[in-house]
């Protein structure tokens, strides 16, 4: 409020400077803007909130239209076939169901679908126990002045660009593993019976570009997601039940196993599935660390490919196909990947939403 100069309040003093006439265009615009501000907010926000929807429809439509010929011609072979060839680029064009494609082209994506599943499973196996253990250490053991900077370090790990992690995995981590760790595992597996789960771990260990390295790197990339969510969940467990458990003489492990973990289990599952979604869609690190192969990995150290990595690495190859059918097949790959990761994402949300409603089992705040 400007001060009312001198006068006793009944007569407002004229404002200093040139008085603005009542019908000045500026004032009219100002009044109009003030009166319609709410409309402005409403309409711009309404448009803005529709844009993600539009982008989604657009993306799905583009993928579906592009992939349709490939879906028709490749059929079910796409899901179980093991052979990926572009055929003769300069040979005769063949028409199947009215769709032109190069003669002898065959697109079986089973090796890379399997590779996607394998690498994600390795990532989850590595990431979940480590994340839970680290979250316990951060929340239950260490004092705040230690755990806060360490938690920050985990968040920094989440922020490192995946291409930088890929470079490190390719030049430093992979070779180190292949030199020091993998020979040990292969040696142990060599003494075990030569049947399915064990023979997969037998050598040769190659250069360190392959399935296990990629799985470990993917695990590292999803650890921040799972660990920070788990840490926040642990902080939400009320102290009373835990203190009650300790008062009954439970050890730390028993308190963790019987009170804390059951309390937050659904949240951890949700975070895990969210991390799985990230691992399925990760591209550049897998391309660099995994060896970008189109075949099933012969052992766990061998090069492999994932769907996401193949979409990136096969673009140049697909462009050589003059009929455009290879590009359509890449669209089919993208569609499959999108469907899988959206389904995984929704599973995560559903798990969290379903179980968080049930609420605290005992005690309460």
């Amino acid at each position, binding site marked *: 409020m400007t001060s009312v100069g001198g006068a006793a309040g009944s007569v407002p003093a004229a404002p200093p400077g040139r008085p603005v006439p009542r019908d000045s265009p500026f004032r009219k615009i100002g009044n109009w803007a*003030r009166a319609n*501000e709410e409309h*402005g*907010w*409403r309409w*711009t*926000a309404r448009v*803005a*909130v529709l*844009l*993600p929807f539009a*982008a*989604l429809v*657009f*993306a799905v439509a*583009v*993928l579906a239209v*592009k992939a349709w010929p490939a879906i028709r011609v490749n059929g079910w072979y796409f899901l179980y076939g093991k052979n990926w060839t572009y055929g003769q680029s300069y040979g005769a064009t063949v028409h199947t169901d009215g769709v032109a494609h190069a003669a002898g082209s065959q697109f079986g994506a089973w090796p890379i679908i399997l590779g996607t599943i394998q690498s994600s499973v390795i990532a989850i196996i590595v990431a979940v126990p480590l*994340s*839970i*253990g*680290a979250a316990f*250490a951060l929340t*239950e*053991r260490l004092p*705040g002045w230690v755990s806060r900077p360490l938690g*920050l*370090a*985990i*968040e*920094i*790990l989440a*922020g*490192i*660009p995946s*291409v*930088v*992690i890929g*470079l490190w995995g390719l*030049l*430093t*981590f992979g070779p180190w593993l292949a030199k020091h760790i993998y020979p040990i595992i292969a040696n142990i597996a060599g003494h075990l019976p030569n049947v399915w789960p064990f023979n997969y771990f037998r050598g040769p260990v190659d250069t360190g570009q392959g399935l296990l390295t990629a799985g470990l790197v993917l695990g*590292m990339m999803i650890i921040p997601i799972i660990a920070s969510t788990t840490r926040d969940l642990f*902080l939400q467990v009320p102290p009373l039940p835990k203190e009650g458990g300790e008062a009954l003489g439970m*050890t730390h492990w*028993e308190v963790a196993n019987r009170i804390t973990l059951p309390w937050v289990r659904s949240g951890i599952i949700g975070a895990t599935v969210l991390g799985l979604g990230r691992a399925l869609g*990760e*591209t550049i690190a897998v391309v660099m660390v995994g060896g970008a192969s189109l075949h099933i990995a012969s052992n766990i150290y061998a090069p492999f490919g994932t769907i*996401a990595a193949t979409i*990136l690495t096969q673009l140049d190859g697909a462009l050589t196909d003059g009929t455009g059918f290879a590009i359509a097949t*890449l669209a089919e790959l*993208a569609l499959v*990947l*999108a469907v899988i*990761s959206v389904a995984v*994402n*929704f599973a995560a*949300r559903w798990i969290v939403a379903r179980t968080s409603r049930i609420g605290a*089992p*005992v005690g309460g705040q």
Partner: protein
Amino acid sequence: MTAHSPLAAGPSTRRRRSSSIGFRVFTYTALVLILGPAVWILLGVLGRALGHWRWSVLWTPLTTEGGGLRDQILGTLLLMAGVFILAGTVGVLAGIHLSELAKPRKSGKRSGGFLRTCSDILSGFPSIVLGYVGYTALVVGLHWGYSFLAAVIIVSIMVVPYIAKTTENSLRQVPTGYREGAEALGMTMGYSLRKVVLKSALPGIVTGLLLALAIAGGETAPLIYTAGFANKLPHSLTHASFPYLTYVVFSFYDSPNPQYHYLAYDAALILVVIVLLLLVASRMIVSRTQRHAEGARTRTRTPRRPRRPEPTGEPLDLVDLHR
């Protein structure tokens, strides 16, 4: 809680002790195994880049013999600026709509459910899939070619759901009393949104924006599909490939030219520095505002001085007066 009767014979004391020690060892090992690689990556990036670091990398252009990364750094920053403008506007407005403006359903459910679901689906899309969509629709379909505009649009689509979510969440944390107070003072809804609600939610929104920028700057796969790569900054938004840092890291490390290897390491270092700056900035905003916020959730277990209880109309507890 469980079917175990407290009187049933449990495991022996020795087993309980060893499992407790084993658990303790496991938690610390897990922490080391997580933090070790993080430190290893940062030191590795530093070690590779600092061995032959020269500051001229920052301001000399890229040439076939080597040179610097001026245009790539500028390109990444421009890309982030473009994403900030496009995705920032759309995401923040979408968040405002979802939190403030969407009408509640008659069934009492949270409003805007369908649009929020769309946003969630979009955030589940892998970035490479969006890159492919950008390639087919914008680069080839609209004949833009590899270009800045295509890259900005695709990366924006990638981060808009994230910005919308963080905006919505920080708007929801604004106490209802602020809105009611503004209304009681006779503010119009738009004015109170601008001056009261958005103002107090601003730190959360800015944090979300900064993290979204970090994601945008570190992204590679969709950019390869939409921006291509160039040595120099182009003069147009479309029909010209665009330089950015992540591609240098991705493809220069195995080039036959050893100078290019150094550039890849330098680019990795610069990227990490940019991302860390953004993370630190967002952290500082969070901690600054949490210190001043009323009733902020504190992570520490230090007992806080209990606040004066809200007047409830009941007679005062005598203990209260003697404090």
